[in-house]
């Protein structure tokens, strides 16, 4: 009984973490799109750096989602 309860909690936690990471991935894609859009409206010398920053955020979220799928 105790074992099944523990595994139930772990499966729930796994689903919650994966859902959060998937939603964060969608959020990251929107951020990349928004920065590209705003970079065209206001062109500054910081715009390429911002693209790299939000690109890194997208890559990190994708990597973490894959890591979670593998190790959980």
């Amino acid at each position, binding site marked *: 009984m105790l074992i099944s309860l523990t595994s139930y909690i772990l499966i729930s936690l796994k689903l919650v973490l994966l859902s959060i990471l998937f939603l964060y991935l969608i*959020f990251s894609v929107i951020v990349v799109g*928004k920065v590209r859009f*705003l970079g065209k*409206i*206001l062109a500054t010398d*910081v715009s390429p750096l911002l693209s790299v920053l*939000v690109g890194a955020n997208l890559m990190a979220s994708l990597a973490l989602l894959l890591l979670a799928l593998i*190790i*959980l």
Partner: protein
Amino acid sequence: MINSLSAYHKDPKITFKDQEQGETILLLLRRHLITNVWWLLTALALSFLPVVILFGRVLPPALDPALLPGNYTLVALLTWYLFVFGFVIINFLDWFFNVDLVTNKRLVDMDYVNLLFFKSSETNYSKIEDVSYHVSGLFQVSFNFGDVSFQTAGTQENFDLTEIPNPAGVHDLITDLMTTSPS
């Protein structure tokens, strides 16, 4: 690059969409840098929160993270820091793209409201009827920032530049441009 991250930037070397021929940007304005302190401090506090929870033993024994398998703790921890990074990015973008441009022809107000909404409005100096500014509160007086409001003619909506540095200087510049611009 440092100048591009300034909140009060004279003669910035930037361009914007719909910039007319012969139009030069005299002043780029953002919210005062000090207004970013709250989210920087929040991000700092959020960064230390897992350390406090993991090593401070502040949670009741039933919720002790040590009960979880190591891989779950690792993913949860990395997810948390990814969220903190996202929080920093969103707040930075909110500050960086909320820009007011004072050009030799008009006033442009770009509002980054949230991730899915962006608004840009402009007015010619000839349509501005009244300009006022106010600096209120200890924080604004100490760091010399405040709001500049413009009342425009007709059905055009009024303009508000909020929490910008040196509001008196901006007020002076715009009243000068109002008198020199052709109506």
